[in-house]
Each structure stands twice: as C-alpha cells, then as structure tokens.
C-alpha cells in the first residue's frame, strides 16, 4: 500500500469526483475511507514499512466502514419518517453519527501517542538530521569566518 500510496490517493480522488457527479452517495464513503487510510499511512510510513501503525490503520479502515454502512442501513430503514426509537438522545442512525463517526476517531490521537516513542520519532532520526542539517552547517560556516 505504501509503495503505491500516490496511485491509491489518485484513484480515490477520481472515484469520489465520479460519485459526486453520479450521486453515488453510498459508494462515496468507501472511497473517502480509502483516502483517509492511505493518507494516514503516508504519514506513518518509515522506509516503506508501517510497523505498529499497520494494525491501527486496519482498525481505522474497518471501523469506519462498519460505522458508515451501519449508519446507511439504519437510515434506509426509516429515511423520512418520525424516529421510532431513540438511543442516548438521538434517532438510531444519528446516534451512529454522534457516538461513532464523531467520537470514536478521537482514539486515533491516542494511537499516535502510543506509537510515538517506538515508531514516530527515534533518537537516531534526530542524530542523522543533525548530521545533515543546513542550520548546523550555516552556524559552522559563520563560526569559521569569525
């Protein structure tokens, strides 16, 4: 997935445009979720690997698909009538929006923090950057001139 992230984002973007013009609103979420997962994968990737970010992306992708299509199924069951029941204050499909699609993605922020030290940034990254830093080279050249 990481190697072809550009191609996947391109395909997802083209697909979403097509859905807009054809009003394929039930397909649109699938392509949007593909976009989100590949988008985050680009940020989580290190040298072509996803490491501990891989399970996070699986959960994110599958979780989103379940939530969106549960919302659509519940919506289709009663698209325009009065709600027959309420779940924690909202009609069922809206409850999926509020408690699922809104609040569950907050866990992605927790996931980022949990893999931060062992995957997102490592001490050796900072050492390598220091060695190639233009800032450091500029400072050194100023020092030499002085």
């Amino acid at each position, binding site marked *: 997935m990481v190697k072809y992230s550009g191609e996947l984002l*391109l395909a997802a973007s083209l697909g979403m445009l097509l859905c807009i013009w054809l009003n394929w609103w039930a397909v649109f979420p699938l392509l949007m979720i593909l976009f989100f997962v590949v988008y985050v994968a680009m940020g989580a990737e290190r040298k072509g690997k996803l490491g501990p970010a891989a399970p996070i992306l699986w959960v994110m992708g599958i979780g989103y698909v379940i939530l969106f299509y549960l919302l659509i199924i519940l919506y289709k069951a009663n698209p325009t009538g009065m709600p027959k029941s309420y779940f924690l*204050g909202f009609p069922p499909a809206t409850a999926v929006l509020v408690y699922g699609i809104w609040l569950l*993605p*907050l866990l992605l922020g927790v996931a980022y*923090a949990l893999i931060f030290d062992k995957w997102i940034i490592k001490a050796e990254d900072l050492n390598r950057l220091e060695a190639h830093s*233009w800032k450091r080279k500029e400072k050194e050249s100023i020092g030499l001139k002085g």
Partner: protein
Amino acid sequence: MSGVPIFNTPVTLSIAILYLLVCLGIGVWSYGRTKTAADYFITGQTIGLWVVSIAAFSAIMSGFGFVGGPGLTYKFGTSSLWITFAQAVAFPMAWFLLAKRMRLMAEVRNVLSLPDAVAARYRSNGARFWMAVALLFGVLGYLGTQVQAMGVVMQTIFGIDLVTGALIGLAILTIYTMMGGILAGVYTDFFQGVIMIFASVGVFLWCMNVGGGMTNISHNVALADPKLMGPWGGMPIMTALTWYFLFAIGNAGQPHMATKLYMTRDIYRLKWGGFVSAVAYALCALLWMSLGLTMRSLVESGKHAPLANPDLTATTFLMEYTPEVLAGIVLAGLMAAIMSTGNSFLNLGAAALVRDIPQAFGKKVENEVFWARLATLGLVVVSTFFALYMKTLVALLGVFGWGTFAAAVVPVVVIGLNWKRGTATAAIAAIIIGLVANFALEIMAKYNVYKLPNGAVVGAVAVMLAIIVYLAISMIQKKHDDDSDLDQDIKEVLEA
C-alpha cells in the same frame, strides 16, 4: 445591523472588559520577549504541549463555530455537524502527516512560514511565491469576515454601532499582535481556547436543562421535519459527505494550524498534541450541536417565536435562556474565537508580505520584525476597508477560505512532505488549479451560472482537483524511488 440583541449589562460588560485587558496584558508581556523574526513568526520555538495543542485548536475554531455553526444547525438540523465532527479525526490525521515533518523541517532549516517549507521541499522559489499568493488570498478573505464578525460581537456586548465596535476590537487585536507577534498570539490563543471550552461545556449543559434533555430536543425537532434529526439533516447527503471529507483532510492544510507545529520546544512535546487538540475541539463542538438544536426545539414546541435570522440563534438563546455570567463567558469566548483566528491570519499575512514574496524574488528584507509589525498594521487597514466597503468580495473570499487553504496546502505540503515523487511543477500547478477552481466554482454558483451537482461542496471538489493534478503531474515527471532532486537534509526529514 438591526435585530442584534444587546447585552450591555454590568456583568457581561465586566467579563468582556476583563477578557480584553488580559489579551492586552499578554501582548505587553510578549513584547519584551519578541526580538527576532523567529520570535515574531514561530515564538522562537519555546512553547510546550498544552499551549501548542490548545492554540492549534483555537486557531481552527473561528467565530463561525460560535455563530454560523449553531445557526446552520437551527436551520438544517444535523447537516452542519459533519463539519465540526470531522475535526475529531482531522487533528490526529494532521499529527500523523505533519507534526513530525514540520518540526523536523524547523530542526534542519530556518523555516518560519509555510512557503519557507515549500521552497526547501521543492527547491523552488516559484512554488514559494505561489504558496504565498494563495495564503494572502485566503488571509484577506478570512480577515475580512473576522472584522465583520468582530463588529457584530462588539455591538452585541457594548451596544455601540458596528463600525466603532469593529474598530475597537481590531485595535486591541492589532496592538497585541504587533507587540508580541505570534508569541502573544499563541498565549492569547491558549487563554482564549480555555475560555471557549468552558463556554461551550457550560452552554451544552444549559441547553440540556432548558430543552428537557437530548431525547426531548430530538423529538421536538423531528416533529417539524424528521429529516432534520436524521443523520444527514435537511441538506443533500452529498453536502454532508463532502463537508466531512473537506474538513477532515483540510485541517492539516490550514496554515494557521500547520505553522503551530514548528513552535514546540522540542519534537517530543508533540506526542499527545493531536489528541489534546481533537478533544478540546470536540468540547467546543458541543455548543455548535446543542445550541442550534435546542433553539429549534423551543421554537417547534411553541415556547419561542421563530427566529427571523438563523445567525441570531446563539445570541438569542444566550440573552433569553442563560444566566448573565454564562452569557458573558460565551460572548468572551466568541470574541476569543474571532481574535485567535484573526491573530493567526495577521501573522501569516505579515510573513507572506515581508518574508515569502521578497524571498521568492531573491530579496531579503532587513529588520524583518519591524517590517512585519508594519505589515500587520497594513493588513488590518486593508481588511477593515474590504470588510466595511467591499462586502460582496469579503463574503466570497470568506466562503472559500478553508477550501482555498486546503486546495493549496494539502497536496503541496501535507502530501508533498510525505511523498518523495512530488515535483515543483506539480506543486505550482496544484496551487493554481486549487485557487482557480475555488474562485470559479464559487462565483459561478453565486451568480447561478453553474452549480456543482447533488449539493457537493465547492471546496471539496477544488481539493480533489488540486490533489489529482499534483499526483498526476508528479507521476508523469518522476519515477518511483527517484529522489535525486531532494537535498540530503530534506530527504532525511521525509524518510524519518
């Protein structure tokens, strides 16, 4: 503006004046600490987790979230919640994609603005120039709308006329921004963000109390039209979905958010930042959701007359249903939302004028801090003129502000810092396409020449087009694994 409720009671006035004095105090405190351009534009990289996270969220939450958002919810039910709910995933995504790269970029280069990062990434002054132009367009539009909103809020609190209100509010914003640059900005953002959170949670609890609980509110709104309480609300389904897409991926593309990632003391402070920002924003979204639905519930149950203008939802509810202290805090929160966003834009605009555009032509401005302060003043004057005398232009620019930034920044910076195949030509083409698509589609829709099908949002389509152009041109120009056009330090940033 007629019909605006006036709140000038001793309690609300005291809270508002205290709030404004604290903002000025932070400006004075920051003045002595702002000596270099790095201090003025990126705080000299001195801030910690809580300040950067809350400042990032409060920059994103503009006055629209406190006035326009509840107004949309009042009118269309749940539709606009897709905008505000998107931020729960948007902040963590922005952290995955940008936090590390932006902070590392500041580690290896003297980057103070987004166009600085673009120039370093693409080794292109052309890309730097076009990014600065896109930012200036967005900044002028957003500033214009903030000036107008400021006038209404000051009128609401102090009972003065709109122009005088806008000028007083702007004077305070200008003073603390000119004195303390972004250092004053992030500390006032932090203070303002905390006020917004308290205000939002307070209003949410009050709404539940007045409305008789969420189930009762939902039921009353559904009686008017069941669609309003359905998952898509009263607007087309495609509007809700394209809003969600635009606001989820566009967050990382907002320069006033992205540049905050340069500012932490060290990279490790970013660890919990995405989560903190997302939770802080979610707490503020409670106001957006509850206020509009509660007011509509009161109207539908016959307890309140229908509102003449949905934008009066928040002020009407505050005046008639909340205690003065809470109303005062929310109004201070509203001023806070406007000022925190305005300050960020002044800073971005000043950087574009004093640093990015001259450097795109190979010129370096001496004494950047002095000129940045002058540019800040100039931007305030120009945007005030626009806001007061060119309202149609401001309305247009304001509408596509988020989309303009997203279309320019998402492909070029967010994807570009995570994908080595991106090229300078593709970056310039994407920025231009994003700008043109936003402008053209908004203007055509406004004058009924052409509207996007099925309720799709212009900004979302413009972002998709810009991403497609960026990816397609890059793929044509560059093969897999070719990173020969990257400087070694930038390559390390992209690979870390």
